[in-house]
């Protein structure tokens, strides 16, 4: 059984079909990339999966459980974590606090216990802290532990956002353009982390990405979209040489070919 499955999902904004009857399956332990020109509907698919948008049609299934109608704040509890294209961290909190917020879906202590900071809360806090420290060690963020996010450089924030998603301990990780805004070395580093996440942590990854080198480096399979429709699916090589994909990138809008 696949870990994640989208069955014919569509979404309309006004008259425009931003995502049009898209189906795909992601197997456990694979890195699945979604590529396509700007406005092809890639981020919209992520917003559908994280339930910020409602799918007009279709079904979303993770681990055999349908979640097409689940409220957005329950998605993390189902083991789905995500990052955002333009970084949506909590800028006026420290790095450590940001990671601890990632632990929120595992918080089970009652309100009264929190207000009085009883022993149960204290013990839970120490456990969350240990998990957060594991992530800090995994991503090598020790020196920034107590810095405010607002004071960190862009490249580091991108890694912090990845770390915050890992704190959820997800089965499925959605990465929205992990390399956008990063320089060549940082992009390379991001590639190694994605590989580590797959191999060491065994987390399945769906990634939206423009950088073809990164896509080739980490992806097991690739799906190409244009105008909300699936153009091609397969190994990175198959998709990139697919005539429809070549046409979509080179045919109409030359400047999007990057």
């Amino acid at each position, binding site marked *: 059984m696949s870990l994640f499955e989208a069955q014919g999902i569509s979404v309309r904004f006004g008259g425009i079909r931003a995502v049009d009857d898209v189906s795909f399956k992601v197997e456990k332990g694979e890195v699945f990339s979604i590529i396509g020109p700007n406005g092809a509907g890639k981020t919209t698919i992520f917003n559908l999966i*994280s339930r*910020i948008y409602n799918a007009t049609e279709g079904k979303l299934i993770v681990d055999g459980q349908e979640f097409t109608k689940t*409220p*957005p*704040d*329950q*998605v*993390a*509890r189902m083991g789905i*974590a*995500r990052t*955002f294209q333009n970084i*949506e*961290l*909590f*800028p*006026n*909190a420290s790095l*450590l*606090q940001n990671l*601890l*917020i*990632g*632990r*929120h*879906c595992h*918080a089970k*202590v009652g*309100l009264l216990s*929190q*207000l*009085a*900071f009883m022993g149960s*809360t*204290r013990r839970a*806090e*120490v456990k969350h*802290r*240990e998990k957060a*420290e594991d992530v800090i060690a995994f991503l090598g963020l020790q020196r920034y532990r107590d810095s405010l996010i*607002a004071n960190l450089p862009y490249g580091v924030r991108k890694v912090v956002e990845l770390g*915050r998603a890992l704190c*959820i301990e997800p089965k499925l990780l959605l990465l929205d353009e992990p390399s956008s805004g990063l320089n060549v070395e940082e992009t390379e580093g991001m590639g190694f982390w994605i590989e580590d996440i797959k191999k060491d942590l065994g987390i399945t990854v769906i990634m939206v990405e423009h950088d073809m080198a990164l896509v080739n480096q980490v992806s097991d399979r690739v799906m190409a979209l244009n105008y909300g429709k699936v153009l091609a699916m397969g190994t990175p090589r198959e998709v990139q040489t697919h005539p429809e994909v070549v046409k979509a990138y080179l045919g109409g809008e030359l400047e999007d070919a990057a």
Partner: protein
Amino acid sequence: MRYLFRTDYKQDTALARHGGDVFWYGLLTLAMLAIPLLMGEFYVGELGGVFIFAIAGVGLMLLVGYTGLISLGHAAFLGIGAYTNSVLLERGMPFVVTLPVAGLFTAFCGAAIGLPTLRMSGLYLAIATLAFGSIVGTVFQKWSSVTGGFDGFAVPTPTIFGIGLDGATGIYYVSLVVLIFVLWISANMLRSPMGRAMVAIRDSEVSAQSMGINLARYKAMAFAISAGMTGLAGALFAHYVRFLAPDAFDVLLSVQFVTIVFVGGLGSLHGAIFGAIFVRLLPQFIAIVRDDLPFGIGRLPGLEPSLFGLVLVLVILFQPGGINGIWQKAKHAFTAFPFKRQTSSRRQKSYAKSERLR
């Protein structure tokens, strides 16, 4: 400078970061306890007023400074707390019951107004709470069978375990205890998942949601806790003024509360205390210098609110960190002397973050 060497995760969740904290806060508490023995009735009363405003200020700080929700209707919550407490006292209930009931009932009212306004953004919430405050103010005026309407309401003297709290000193000590309790609750909240969820909502609702935070639940909870603390302050306020008039709980009072939060410094419990001291002491200061000001400025009827307005404007324009920001900078300059650099306190340039689709 002091460096913390951490050897245990529990150190980061401890209330006092190091021995210095324990020493200074302990000294402050002792000083506050000793003040009624050393100072006159007038000063004790005024300081009690500062405590009451600080309690409401802490409540509002949790909402505005930590959850990022604004309220221009907190005077209504103060009023609800004050009237609940006084009406119950008059019906013969003991003060040890009416005080917590006033807090809980106001918290319930806070949740009731918080729930429908959850989807609103900063601006709409400001307008909605403004409207709420003015509706509640009218209710206080018109529901004269309970509130006494414009004739006012003489607040009965409370007793705790047989001791009558008729002087300023009694209310002073009760207010001090409630203030410490409220600060303790707030500090606990801020170091547990709930407080972090509030900060997350303040900084980015979208990603807070994708971290598994139920926006509606936490916003309503923040509203309820904030209103509840303000209700406690209201119950004490009733005994502080001893006579309730409905027009005391108007928009101007709400603006004073928000001034506490902004002038004190957003996102800091210290700020709430600093702000309360400022807001309570400014009118006293005006009263003292009133006759010495040139051109009769001192006798202008609108002097007090306009000074509040002016300070608010100046703080937002030039010192967004508020008094707490100045305090932190001064502390930093002192401990780092002589290594202070201009850049270490320079403000970051911020850019408009639109909440609209373009």
